[in-house]
């Protein structure tokens, strides 16, 4: 993949995937909200071997600006071979339970905004007839849990959207990848005590890169989450509800 667009490029996981692309000499277009952070990431990727790096600073909840992302990326890259959408926030469940606007914001960042971007991108890719669109959702979207259901709803909704998008774009030759990481040690989870279930951003980022090259449809990262979630999904709700999850 020679020309790659990365949305949410300052995410720890996205930076690791971007490094893999940079090492193979790809051209990259980065989108994020902080110009300072974008600059730091862009410089890093250039040193690591990217043939060129461009960036656009935009708060991704400003959906009216999403067409600019496509325009910017096309102007800079020409053809777009791959996209990774990685931005997101992990809302504090407790607050989301009592603060209506906070809960709505969480859905806005984690669901509405990627859906809006994907809507802009999908027609472009449909016409192009080739390419790969990867989006980071989460294992949290596989089941509604007491401890994290607002985030789970956004990621679960996004996964459903991607399932449909994959079906729509497959005949056109465009691949859609749903990425479902488990727990990852990144700034998003800095407040959580770490245990053996946490994977490094580096491992997750590399795996996403590989899945994009291979054209996979759904990946759990690390792999064992596929089996953990298979078990969790198979538990009927009356029992599931009682679990301390």
């Amino acid at each position: 993949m020679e020309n790659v667009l990365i949305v949410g490029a300052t995410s720890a996981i996205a930076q690791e995937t971007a490094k893999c692309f940079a090492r193979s000499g790809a051209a990259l277009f980065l989108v994020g909200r902080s110009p300072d952070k974008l600059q730091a990431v862009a410089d890093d990727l250039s040193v690591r071997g990217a043939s060129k790096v461009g960036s656009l600073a935009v708060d991704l909840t400003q959906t009216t600006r999403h067409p600019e992302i496509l325009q910017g990326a096309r102007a800079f890259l020409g053809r777009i071979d791959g996209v990774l959408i990685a931005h997101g926030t992990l809302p504090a469940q407790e607050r989301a339970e009592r603060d209506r606007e906070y809960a709505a914001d969480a859905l806005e960042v984690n669901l509405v905004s990627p859906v809006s971007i994907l809507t802009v991108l999908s027609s472009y890719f449909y016409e192009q007839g080739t390419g790969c669109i990867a989006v980071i959702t989460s294992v949290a979207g596989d089941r509604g849990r007491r401890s994290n259901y607002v985030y789970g709803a956004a990621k679960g909704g996004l996964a459903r959207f991607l399932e449909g998008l994959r079906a729509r774009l497959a005949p056109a030759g465009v691949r859609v990848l749903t990425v479902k990481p488990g727990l990852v040690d990144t700034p998003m989870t800095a407040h959580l005590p770490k245990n053996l279930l946490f994977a490094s951003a580096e491992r997750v980022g590399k795996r996403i890169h590989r899945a994009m090259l291979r054209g996979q449809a759904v990946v759990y990262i690390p792999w064992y989450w596929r089996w953990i979630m298979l078990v969790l999904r198979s538990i009927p709700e009356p029992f599931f509800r009682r679990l301390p999850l």
Partner: protein
Amino acid sequence: MPPGHRPGYDPFGAVTVGTYAPSGTYRCVRFATNFWDSTLPGSWRREIEGMPAHSLSLVREDATPMPVVPAGPRYQSWGRYPRVARQDVLQIVWRCDVPRWDTLDRSVLPFGQGRSYGDSCLNEGGVLLDASGLRRFISFDHDHGILACEAGVTLAEILAVTLPRGWILPVIPGTKFVSVGGAIANDIHGKNHHRAGSFGCHVRNLELLRSSGERMTCSPESHSDLFAATVGGLGLTGLILSAELQLARVGTALLEVERIRFGQLNEFFEISEESDATCEHTVAWIDCLAGGRKLGRGVFHRANHVQQTVPAGVRTRGTVALSVPFYAPRVLLNRYTMKAFNTCYYGGQFTTTRKRLTPYERFFFPLDSVRNWNRVYGRPGFLQYQCVVPPRVGRDAIREILERTARAGRGSFLAVLKQFGQRASPGLLSFPRPGLTLALDFPFQGRPTLALCDDLDAVVAQAGGAVYPAKDARMSPEHFARYYPTCDDFLKHMDPRFSSSFWRRVTGATD
């Protein structure tokens, strides 16, 4: 404010919003009529509604300020001694996002990769500023070998990026898993000290963040006293955010290595003298359990970089193949197994010298091929004792130290002896200075181990030498003051909010 106005910070800490806003959450203070509709996220819009239409200014609050959390088991030193009962950690991830000093009520200390052995990277009761998230390159000038990177970048990452382009780090320690910040703060040395001097000699400049909020670019030319204090400054002068390094040209990633076995200490001095004139890298491994006539026997390693390209088929990259997954039980490590190891290593060498081509990783980082090798010392951990003694009296001092160690029978796998060169270290508290340096590992066995080290300190102090803080967990305040007489000068440049377990121990400071 008109649409399309460039954003910027106003002097009162508020931020004005134009076509984009820097990251962060914003509390709306005042509101502009004609502006927000297309450029503000929904949540702000809702917040703004109902406010008097006047002008807009949003006060920036950091989006998700990184939390200060209890430090997990990762935040130990390499020797696993001493253990810290309580310390917290704050991750530093971006150069542009400074820690909120007002929320930090205890002393802070930067933490790199925790490859220091003792307590110089620990801060009992305080907060560690984990700089390992500052791991981005900034620029690389291929023509002149000038590399700028953030302080948390490891030497392994640097080599991976620069070697294929013909540049190598001018100073390489015994492990590639150390950060640039840590390399500067301990002003580390390599097997080529006799040629290249210490790491700090190759730092063109560094960016230092002080707890006053000031960012200073320090170099031998500008803020030169702060530069001298920061190189070898044990992380106590502020947080290094980034540095610019001068790399060295190299033809290939291979070295031509020669190993020479020697039967006693005097032979070492001869070989070393001769080799330092012809070889870039020199170091010797010593069997520190052999006493009497065999005292100081060992194997001398010397090497030069291979400058032309090499035949295909020669492996140039080593991989991490092995790992010590858990702490080994102590019974595996006793004086008999160590004696057997040392004897086999010595006996396994050819009596004549052989030259062979070796990938750089195998030469520089033999220990890195077994991850977590420090766990072979078991839970109690181990001490490393590294000293330097001046050239004149050095030979006798080294002999004395080896004798005392052999007599105590407590040495272990690794004793390393090398001759430091004349090149002056740039740091006020730098360890490398002309003379002989010897490093010994001791499994931690409580009081007898500490007593032996104190015993060795007496020899080193007598000879006018010094002990390496990066490896130390036990030297006394009196000895520290003797080894580092520039300490008073250093105090002037310390950041008042910074401290470490090591520093409190060797200076008697309370915080």
